[in-house]
């Protein structure tokens, strides 16, 4: 079961991830990301981390994906037109990404990790204890970071200058020209 389950989950994760980076429709890409994250949650569950799986579903799928969708919605200029995700330089990116994978796989294959269990697998209770004892300071610092991030995000998006700065006329054309200039 374990091997089969892992294979299925891995297929889901990687397959949906490919859709995330290749999807032409932005909304689709976000939704595919949701699938990836759900798959990851399933993987966590297989790795004996049910708490993580729950958090993953709640924050990521519930929070981040929603946020992303809002982001896409807000920044679309023309209602009704499918949000299109433009991409460039697919060939060289593919080459280097594959290289990255091959190299990492090579490393894993040449030096197979040998790890022996030193402790029993942590339960949710263990996690709670660790968070509030050993990692308390890091936990609090993290909460501070979140606060700062929220405040920062609000400050950033607060409207100060209602006028968008003057962009060159015929902007999409300009953009295309620009893109063709920098990407051979």
């Amino acid at each position, binding site marked *: 079961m374990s091997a089969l389950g892992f294979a299925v989950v891995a297929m889901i994760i990687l397959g949906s991830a490919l859709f995330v980076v290749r999807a032409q429709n932005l909304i689709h890409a976000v939704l595919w990301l949701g699938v990836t994250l759900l798959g990851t949650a399933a993987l966590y569950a297989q790795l004996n981390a049910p708490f993580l799986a729950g958090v993953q579903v709640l924050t990521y799928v519930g929070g981040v994906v929603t946020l992303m969708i809002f982001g896409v919605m807000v920044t679309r200029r023309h209602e009704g037109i499918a949000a299109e995700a433009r991409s460039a*330089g697919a060939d060289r990116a593919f080459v280097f990404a594959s290289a*990255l994978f091959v190299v990492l796989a090579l*490393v894993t294959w040449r030096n197979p990790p040998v790890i022996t269990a030193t402790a029993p697998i942590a339960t949710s209770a263990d996690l709670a204890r660790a968070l509030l004892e050993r990692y308390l300071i890091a936990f609090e610092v993290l909460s501070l970071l979140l606060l700062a991030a929220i405040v920062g995000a609000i400050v950033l998006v607060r409207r100060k200058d209602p006028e968008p700065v003057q962009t060159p006329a015929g902007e999409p054309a300009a953009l295309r020209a620009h893109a063709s200039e*920098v990407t051979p």
Partner: protein
Amino acid sequence: MSPITLAVVATLAPAATALLLLVLFPLRHRGMPAAWVTLLGSAISLAASCKLLVDRIGGAADERAVVPWIEERGRAMAEIGVQLDGVSLPMLVIVGVVALCVQLFSVAYMHDEPPRAFGRYFTLHALFLFSMNVVVVAPNLLQLFAGWELVGLTSYLLIGFYFAKPSAAQAAVKAFWMTKLADMGFLFGLLVLYVNTGSFEWTAPTSTVVATWVSALLFVAVVGKSAQFPLHIWLPDAMEGPTPVSALLHAATMVAAGVFLVVRADPLFAQAPATREVMLWIGAVTAVFAAGLALVQRDIKKVLAFSTCSQLGYMVAALGAGNAFAGFFHLGTHAFFKALLFLAAGSVIHAVHSNDLGDMGGLRKRLPITTAAFVIGALSLAGVPGFAGFFSKDLVLTALEGRGGGAPWVMLLAAAFLTAFYMGRVLIKAFWGELSQKAEHAHEGGLSMTGPLVVLMIPSFASGFLGGWLAGQVKAEYHLHLGLTPVLASVMAVAGLVAAVVVFGRGGQAPGARILEKLDAWSLVDRTWATAYRLGLLGVASIAGWIDRYVIDGLMNLTGWSAIEGGASARRLQTGLVRDYALLVVVGVVVLALMGVLR
């Protein structure tokens, strides 16, 4: 007062005067008071010198006092001070007398100058006298060099006194440059002497080789200062200065310094026969060459200028012949009669407002005292027996007997004839004959002009009789004997005068004057130097300037340019696109991982 104190007073009195006039500029700007202050300073200097000379006649010994001037490792590297002996004391008096006469003469001569210029003129005169005194009392070659250069400076300033005139400005810098060029020889000589003996004494013991080098280098400076061929070209141009300045320059100071140097450094030159041989020839050539050019000059001052060149040639030849005393003696008598001649010429110019011999004529009817002065000076210069110039010139010629295969002797005899001939020409053209138009209203200047003339007439005539005494002072041998040379010299002098009367008395032209005039106008030496200056110095300079601006600095600019251009091309790597940077991160990770794997 001790002799040393007196000598210091004699040297520094004019310096104090100059300083006073420089600092108290209202005094200088007034004009006339400056003249009186200067005269006072010169008089004090002369009085101290005379007192010293009188004491010496009374049997006072040589004196020498020095103080450290430049130090090196706690010891004196160079000293300054005074040396009083048979060479410096007579020279000090000669310089003092001539300078005082010239300054007195200038009071009237320069009377029309604006007060400021008048004051400046006298300040420079005081400085001039100081500089020359520094040369005269110098106890070593370094101080002599210092004074020598200061003399050059003051000559420069005085020749360029009418600085508004471009020709005067040109003449001034030309004089300075030519002498400065030659002075490099002096400096090198000093360095060679210093390296080999560790001192600047002219008596320092040294080898013949060193002595030859040093004396040859010093002689280069003498050629420049004493206007010998081929560095004489500045002297005729120096006539751009006021006439009294020429008198001072030509008689007792500037040009005399060169001859004085050789007399002073005689111990050094005595060890260098090779240098003396060169001196002999250069002196002889200059004497004849300059005498020939003097024959065709239209400007009365230029005649006298070339005659100075020629007479200095005599002195240098005598020094080259190894008879320092003959050169010194001629220097002394020449100082008097040349000063007299120049001042008389100044008086003439003052009267007719022109330098041109063609504007003069019959002046003896209007200017009796000046005429007398000029006649005495001319006869003395021509070497007519009985006059001062005869004795010294005779001594020079005697010294040359049998030297250098006899040729220099013949040349100088010829020059003696030419001297009498051209002086006769000037006398006849300026003072005899019909009264010219410009001379119509000529009249003698005041007492301050005629006074110096009268005073200078005496030694111009009589100083020749002091030869024996002077020889005793410098411990040289001197006898007046009736031999071939004195007779020939006298004959040449008289013949020259007679020939002048014969040729110019009827308004004729000297034979060969055409060629000489051509030669003078062509002025080959002058042009050679001008070309050397323009092509050699300025040409090389502009090449150097171009190289510095466009090659050396260009290379520096190129460095900066490459930095900027290199930066500009490196900037293309920065696309500013996030995905490119991300890709680079990936590439970096791949490379790093590969390095880890393949190790």
